């Protein structure tokens, strides 16, 4: 943590003007890509992310199909221009890991056993990154899967909490992510009270950790309401986009 730069002022206001428990603005759109079976676009703070779902469909290559369940594959990928310094389009180790944990955060929402031998592919493209891309990606990916008509036990929604200066705060943006003390991304299925992604970087006391998880879940619940709204207004939104 950079000592000189204060991330939260004396009044508890963060660098971008938010309070500790305040989310960044979140905008969601469903059904934004005509070629995907399902798709969604999220703006979460300055994160701009597209997600698309294809399937359930025949696995390609075939030998990856499973006789007793559907296979979910997921690719998280950042556009070269999405970050400060141009990123090579070849997948980095970070992108490979995030693809895996995002997949594992979505699987609990699916009835994998009901669609043996098929596959669902989820592709996430981060067009602009501003801290918390994995959470925003999960939020959008769940909508894309729902938009594809794949039955789900619940939507998955994600939000991080963390520690900045000495305060536990929700939904870290880029500068807080880099200069803060800890980051705890959480994916959650509110109706099932189930945490499907949990990671942590940094140092927290057990007590701080508990508060962070709760704060992240509260954030999830707020975004969950927006997700459901976005699914309802899909057709209206689509019209706007294409007008």
């Amino acid at each position, binding site marked *: 943590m950079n000592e000189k730069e204060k991330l939260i002022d004396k009044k508890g206001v963060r660098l971008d003007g938010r309070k500790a428990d305040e989310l960044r603005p979140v905008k969601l759109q469903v059904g934004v890509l005509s070629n995907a079976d399902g798709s969604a676009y999220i703006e979460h703070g300055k994160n701009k992310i597209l997600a698309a779902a294809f399937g359930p469909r025949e696995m390609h290559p075939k030998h990856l199909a499973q006789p007793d369940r559907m296979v979910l594959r997921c690719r998280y990928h950042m556009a*070269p221009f999405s970050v400060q*310094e141009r990123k090579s389009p070849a997948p980095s180790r970070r992108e490979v890991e995030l693809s895996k944990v995002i997949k594992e955060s979505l699987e609990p929402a699916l009835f994998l056993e009901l669609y043996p031998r098929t596959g669902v592919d989820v592709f996430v493209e981060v067009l602009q990154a501003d801290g918390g891309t994995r959470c925003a990606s999960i939020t959008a990916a769940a909508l894309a899967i729902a938009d594809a008509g794949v039955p789900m036990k619940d939507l998955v929604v994600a939000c991080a909490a963390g520690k900045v200066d000495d305060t536990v705060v929700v939904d870290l943006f880029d500068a807080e992510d880099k200069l803060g003390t800890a980051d705890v991304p959480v994916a959650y299925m509110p109706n099932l009270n189930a945490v499907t992604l949990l990671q942590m970087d940094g140092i927290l006391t057990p007590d701080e950790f508990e508060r962070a998880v709760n704060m992240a879940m509260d954030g999830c619940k707020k975004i969950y309401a927006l997700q459901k709204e976005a699914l309802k207004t899909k057709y209206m939104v689509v019209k706007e986009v294409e007008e």
Partner: protein
Amino acid sequence: MSSLVTKVRLKQIEQLIEKGKRLDERGLTDYRPIKIEQGLIERAEGSARVLLGKTEVLVGVKVETGEPFPDTPNEGVMTVNAELVPLASPSFEPGPPDENSIELARVVDRGIRESHAIDTEKLCIEPGKKVFVVFVDVYVLNHDGNLIDASAIASIAALMNTKMPNYEIKDGEIKIKQGYTPLPMKSHPITVTMAKINNRLLVDPWFEEEQVMDSRISIATNEDGNICAIQKGGSSYFTPQQILEATKIALDKAADLRKKLNW
């Protein structure tokens, strides 16, 4: 598309063409509606999103410093990369660039480079040592045909939107100053792609037309009415007469677009 569907579709498309018509009710030399949005990606030095019908392309431009090529020590560097990201089409697969994305990048690159669209000499910081490097990243988000024109237009629009950091050189070291300068541009080429189907030329082929077309020709022209880049594609041929016809159409359509886009 299976070959059976292709054949049925081809017949439909051919019958319409005979009447100068197309499945989506355009005339043979009409473009689909074009929508350009610049500056969408604040983090990039420049960006533009182009909707050409349902085809959607996002171009981001990053400007960094680097070394010039040895044979052009006084000029900045421009590189174009294209990603056919898999969310754009069931036919795109994740992985390293294939021949289609490489061809797309190189055709867009030549349109920019050969028309001298960027004034690369103004990108030189210290001759032979340090220059600005302009990365043009073409990101295809939805593939409904004619990726070349959409990508070429989006690239020029993104370059027009691109800002470079101000700098001064103090004691041999480059120092970034406040403020930005627009990327210096000398030309705004426009690439027009035509499909040959049943021996007729169709401007701006959409996805289904591309599935049944015999071949394809893309012609970039500049504001002086000169030709600066051409690429023929596809498994069939053009007669010399068709080529001359195509250049005329390309010049006409580019002029139209120039007016519409105010380029």
